[in-house]
C-alpha cells in the first residue's frame, strides 16, 4: 500500500533541534516533564472519563476505555502537541501551485533581499555573506525584532532551507520545496517553517497581530509570493477611498484579517467625489 503523508518533515539537519540554543530554550524542569508525559495525561483522561460517566456504567469498563483512549494515536498526538506548545515550538506548512517553472521560482526565493515585498511585517532583509542575511521585522507599537539567518541547503530548482543563527529570541528554521505539478502546468511550492516562541516580546507581538496566527503568516506569505510571481503585484485595497466606517467595522476588520487600512480623508478642494456608501 502506498501511504501518502502530506506533512513534509523538515530535513533533520535543518530542524530547530539542530539549531544552537535549542536545548537551552526548551529545557524543562522534571515536574514540567512529568506533567506532560503521556502516562500522566492518560491517567488524567481516564479520571475525567470515569468521573463523568460513573453514574451510568461499571467503573472497570470505563477505566479500560480510558486506557484505550490514552493509548490511542489521537491522544498521543494531543499529548505531543501539548508538550510542544509548552516549549513554544510551532510547526507550520503551506502549499500552493504556482503557474511558473520551478527554476524561476527557486531564483526568486533565493533573491532573499526581496522577501519584504511578499512577507508580511518583514521590514528589511540585508544579505551579509554568501549564505547569511540579517532580518528586521516590524512589531506592533513601533518595536522591531532582528535576527540573522543562514541558508542550510541550496538545491537549485528543488529546495532551499534556512535557519536563524546566533542569539535570537525566536529561533526559527524552514524550507521551501519546488516540485513540477502533476498536471505539467506550474510548480507545487511547499513551505515548512518552525518557530520557537517564547513569551514576552513575541506574545506581545502576536497580541497585536490578532488577525494572523503563525500558520496564517506562513500561508499568506506564500500566497503573496505566488501572486507576485504570477502577476507582478499583490492585490490590495489598502488606502482606498470609502465612506464613514463605524468603530464596529474597524474591530471587525482587525479580527477578520481584512487588509484595508484606515482611514482615508475626504479631499479638500477640486471635484468632490461621491460614492454610495453602505
Amino acid at each position, binding site marked *: 500500500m502506498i501511504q501518502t503523508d502530506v506533512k513534509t518533515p523538515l530535513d533533520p539537519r535543518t530542524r530547530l533541534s539542530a539549531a544552537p540554543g535549542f536545548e537551552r530554550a526548551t529545557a524543562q524542569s522534571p515536574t514540567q516533564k512529568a506533567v506532560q508525559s503521556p502516562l500522566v495525561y492518560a491517567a488524567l483522561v481516564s479520571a475525567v472519563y470515569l468521573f463523568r460517566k460513573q453514574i451510568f456504567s461499571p467503573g472497570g469498563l470505563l477505566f479500560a476505555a480510558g486506557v484505550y483512549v490514552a493509548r490511542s494515536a489521537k491522544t498521543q498526538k494531543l499529548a505531543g502537541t501539548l508538550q510542544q506548545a509548552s516549549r513554544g515550538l510551532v510547526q507550520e506548512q503551506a502549499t500552493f*501551485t504556482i*503557474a511558473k517553472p520551478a527554476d524561476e521560482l527557486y531564483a526568486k526565493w533565493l533573491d532573499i533581499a526581496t522577501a519584504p515585498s511578499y512577507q508580511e511585517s518583514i521590514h528589511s532583509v540585508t544579505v551579509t555573506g554568501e549564505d547569511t542575511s540579517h532580518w528586521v521585522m516590524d512589531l506592533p507599537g513601533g518595536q522591531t525584532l532582528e535576527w540573522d539567518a543562514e541558508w542550510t541547503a541550496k538545491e537549485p530548482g528543488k529546495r532551499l532551507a534556512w535557519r536563524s543563527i546566533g542569539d535570537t529570541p525566536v529561533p526559527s528554521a524552514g524550507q521551501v520545496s519546488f516540485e513540477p505539478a502533476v498536471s505539467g*502546468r*506550474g510548480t507545487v511550492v511547499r513551505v515548512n517553517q518552525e518557530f520557537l516562541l517564547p513569551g514576552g516580546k513575541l506574545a506581545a507581538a502576536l497580541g497585536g497581530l490578532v488577525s494572523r496566527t503563525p500558520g*496564517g503568516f506562513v*500561508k*499568506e506569505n506564500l*500566497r503573496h509570493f*505566488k*501572486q507576485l510571481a*504570477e*502577476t*507582478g*503585484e*499583490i*492585490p*490590495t*485595497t*489598502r*488606502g*482606498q*477611498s*470609502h*465612506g*464613514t*466606517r*463605524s468603530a*464596529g*467595522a474597524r474591530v*471587525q*476588520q482587525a479580527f*477578520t*484579517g*481584512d*487588509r*484595508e487600512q484606515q482611514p*482615508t*480623508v*475626504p*479631499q479638500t478642494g*477640486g*471635484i*468632490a*467625489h*461621491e*460614492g*454610495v*456608501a*453602505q
Partner: protein
Amino acid sequence: MGKEKLEVQDVADPKILNPGDAIIKITRTAICGSDLHLYDGYIPTMQPGDILGHEFMGIVEEVGPAVKKLKRGDRVVVPFTIACGSCAFCSDQLYSACDNTNPNAALAEKMYGYSGASLYGYSHIYGGYAGGQAQYARVPFADVGPLKIENDIPDEKLLFLTDIFPTGYMGAENANIKEGDTVAVWGAGPVGIFAAASAFMFGAKRVISIDRFPERLALAAKVGAETLDYSKFDTLSTLRELTGGNGPDATIDAVGLEAHGSGLGGVYDKTQQVLKLSFDRPTALREAIMAVRKGGTVSVPGVYGGLLDKFPFGAAFGKGITMKMGQTHMQRYLQPLLKRIEDGQLDPSFIISHRIGMEEIPDAFRVFRDKEFGCTKVVIDPWAEGGRTGDLVPKGSPQGTTKNLSPLAS
C-alpha cells in the same frame, strides 16, 4: 450603512495603489439585482462605509506604471469580476475563479473554503474593493478587465456588457442548448431577459419566461419568449403541459437566493432566512430542478450565498440532470458580445426603465427591489445636475403612491 441603509457621501478620490491600476471617470453606472442581496443583508461581510456598484463604464483618467493597453482618455467598459489574467484559472478562461485578485482570500477561505475572483463593491469576502456607484473608481488589473470601446455607440447600449448581458448569455451557454430545444427561464429581471434572448442565439426554438410582473414579462416577450405568470398559473404543471408532458430540455434560474415564494413553502423559507437558519430561499432553483426533463440541464446564473434547505437532490439525481452555475467569466464574453451589439443584433438598452442621479440612488434601490413604478433597470448618470433627474417618480403620480419613498425624492 447597514441593512437597507444607503447614503450618498463625499469621499476622497480613488488613487492608484498598484502598478496595474487605472482610475476611471465614470460616465454611466447601474444598480443590479445582485446589489439587492447586499441591500437586504444576505451577503455576509458588508461594512458601513463600503461603496457599492459593479456595473460601470467611463473614461480612463489615469493609469499605473505597469498598464500597457490603456491610456488616459480611452473609453472603457469595466467587467464586474476582477481577474489577474495569468493564473491557471484565468489561462483556462475561468476568470471568476481567479486565484490572485482577492486581498481577503484568507477570509473567503475561512467562510467558504475557497477564494475566487474579487468583485467591485460586493462585500469583503469578495475582496472589499470600492465599487462603481460613484463618480470615479479604481480599476485593478486594468490590462485584463476593461474593454476598450472604439466606436461611438452611446453608453446606454454598451453599459450592460459590464455584467447582465454576459451573465444572461453565460446562463444560456451553460444550459447546453441544442437546435430546437425548449428552455424555461425563471425570472424576467435583467438577467432573465438576457438569458432568454441569448437562448435563441444558441438555437432554442421556444423560450418560456416565468415571472409575476407584467412589465417584466412584456420585456421578455419583446425578445421572443412566451410568458408564464406564476401568480396566476402553477409553474410546474403549466410547463409540463407546454412541453408535451416532458418538461423543458433546459431550465435557467435567473432569480437567485431571494426568490419570492408562494404558499406554505415560501413562508417556511422566509422564516428560516429571517432567523438566519439558512441564507437562501431557493424556490426558483427547486422548481427549475423539478421541471427540467430527464437528462436535461439546469443552469444557475442566479446568485446563492449560503446553505440550501429542502433541495430536491433525489429528483436531480434520479433524472440524471446536469447542473452548471457560477459567477460569470466576464472577460470571456466582452469582445464577442460587443460585436453582437455593434452588428445590431441586440440593443440591450431596451430594459432600462429609470435614469437617475447620484442623490436618488438610495431610493432607487427600494423602488427596484419592490418593483415599483414598473422599475426594470436603473441607470445612473453620476454627473447629473444636482445629483437628480427626477425620473424615479413618474411625473404626475400622486405623492404617496409608494410605501417607502423618503421625502428627499419629491
